């Protein structure tokens, strides 16, 4: 009798202590991750603009308005095409670079850093510098074109070129970052397998196609999640380089949220947009969820 009581009370004490240790982190996460998600979900159903005292319930009106807005669809198209324009090339390039630098050698560390260093620079700094590279006529890119006898292009002010131009900059920044993950994936592949393949006479390409690449599968899935998430959350370059110009050809979803929320002070619409962003994040995080499902529950 006493034994069980003490066991129970010890368990209770441990539980209490457990929650206590957890509390500081948990409270912050509840206030700044869980609550805002719920709040966005609620405010997305309301009209809430600058000058109003309280939100006013309007059910799906924000969403139907967005559905009918050509700007919204343009923003979604931009966001998705920018994601595809950046994620796929930066992953491919990241993998390529990883294969290239997956060697031992005196200068290999330096070369790796050469690819990685852009990701320790703030995007805001990168964008400030690339803005001049892309500057009309006088910029380095247009100068290069002109010296090759081509027309100056002024890439940032044309709707066809503005996102690809930003994507090039973004890939330059991101490829080295993703390279590091692939590199770690490559190094965890059992060397015996590769040697066996070499002995069997497999060429480099074949080895990659049938052994290396399949084994990198989990890494690739994981990297895709990171790449998409990063791409959705980063809009500093839009703020610095174009502010969405020309005619919203470079407006990305998060920038649109920022603009609706803080320039137009329209909390209702920007909350609805936030909900849409959260849904997109969930979709791109699915691979992560599946690959980690087990890990989370074994504890």
């Amino acid at each position, binding site marked *: 009798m006493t034994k069980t009581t003490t066991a129970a009370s010890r368990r209770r004490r*441990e*539980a209490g*202590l*457990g*929650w206590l*240790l*957890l509390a*500081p982190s*948990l*409270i*912050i*996460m509840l*206030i*700044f*991750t869980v*609550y*805002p998600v719920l*709040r966005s979900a609620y405010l997305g159903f309301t009209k809430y603009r600058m000058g109003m005292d309280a939100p006013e319930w309007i059910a799906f009106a924000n969403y139907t308005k967005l559905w009918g807005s050509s700007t919204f669809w343009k923003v979604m198209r931009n966001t998705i095409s920018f994601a595809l324009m950046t994620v796929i090339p930066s992953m491919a390039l990241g993998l390529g*670079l990883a294969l290239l*630098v997956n060697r031992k050698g005196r200068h290999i560390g330096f*070369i790796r850093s*050469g690819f*990685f260093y*852009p990701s*320790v*620079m*703030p*995007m*805001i*700094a990168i964008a*400030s*510098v*690339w*803005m001049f590279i892309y500057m009309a006529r006088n*910029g*380095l890119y247009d100068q290069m074109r002109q010296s090759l006898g081509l027309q100056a292009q002024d890439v940032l002010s044309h709707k066809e070129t503005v996102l690809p131009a930003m994507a090039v900059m973004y890939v*330059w920044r991101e490829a*080295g*970052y993703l390279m*590091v*993950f692939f*590199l*770690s*994936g490559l190094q965890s592949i059992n060397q015996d397998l590769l040697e066996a393949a070499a002995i069997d006479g497999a060429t480099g390409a074949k080895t990659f196609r049938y052994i290396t690449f399949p084994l990198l599968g989990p*890494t690739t899935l*994981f990297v895709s999640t*990171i790449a998409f*998430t990063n791409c959705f*959350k980063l809009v*500093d370059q839009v*703020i610095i380089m174009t502010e969405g110009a020309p005619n919203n050809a470079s407006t990305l979803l*998060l920038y649109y*949220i*920022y603009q609706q*929320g803080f320039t137009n002070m329209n*909390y209702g619409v920007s909350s609805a947009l*936030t909900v849409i*962003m959260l849904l997109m*994040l969930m979709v791109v995080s699915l691979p992560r969820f599946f690959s*980690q499902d087990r890990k989370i529950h074994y504890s």
Partner: protein
Amino acid sequence: MKKNRIIRPGAVFLTVLSVVLALIWFAPLFWLVTTALTKTSFHMSFLPTTPFTLDNIKYVWNAVPFGQYYINTIILVVVTFCIQFVTSTLAAYSLAFMEYRGKALVFVIIFMQIIIPNDVLIIPNFMTLSEMGLIDTKLAIMLPFLGSAMAIFLLRQHFKTVPKAFGEAAKIDGANLWQTIWRVYMPCAKPAYMSFAVISVSYHWNNYLWPLIVTKSPTNRTLTVGLAIFAKSKEADMQWSNVCAATFIIILPLLVAFFVMQKQFMNSIVSAGVKE
């Protein structure tokens, strides 16, 4: 021996290719640094055409209170990390070793934070901080980050690899909980702490959107916000030299740190990501 001979031309090609690519990758940094450190001119050029000068740096340093922004950013980065250090250690210990109900729910919340970057929640979090009356304080920049799911996860994984006997031995020696964590688990998880430090510091040094929204005055502005204001202000005269100089000022410390500890930086990214 035979194998070596076959591979050689390929290896040379790969080396050349990687060096060429690395040089291309370095080009923007090269242009940034040379432009920042040479006299201004009306025409931009990739290779410097004007003599070396520190005038741009001096001009920018005086025109914008970068000194103040430096102090702000350092305070922000250091304090954020220190608090994260404590909160994450405690939470990680709790999740690694203690038994109680409701843990699964906590993992769901942690997972939520991992997949939802703070930047996406700018609107509701701004409203929350407004209601707390914290807009335009350094605390407002830090607060959402003080419970770090990434750090908790990373540390918990490391703590779990420490043999249980170590912890029990410490307890028998009469160490209390904090002493046990301090003496046994923290030293074992040193690489995890390093990784997390690198990530936390570089994230907060580079973060822009959130500090932009919650800071108003120079006493709280971070370097990135200061740079953006400067780069976007309608500086009329040959602005690229000045903007490059300003950019140079803000990226320097982290870039130097990176080139000194390349391996540590790259490993940190991987361990925080893949080993979750």
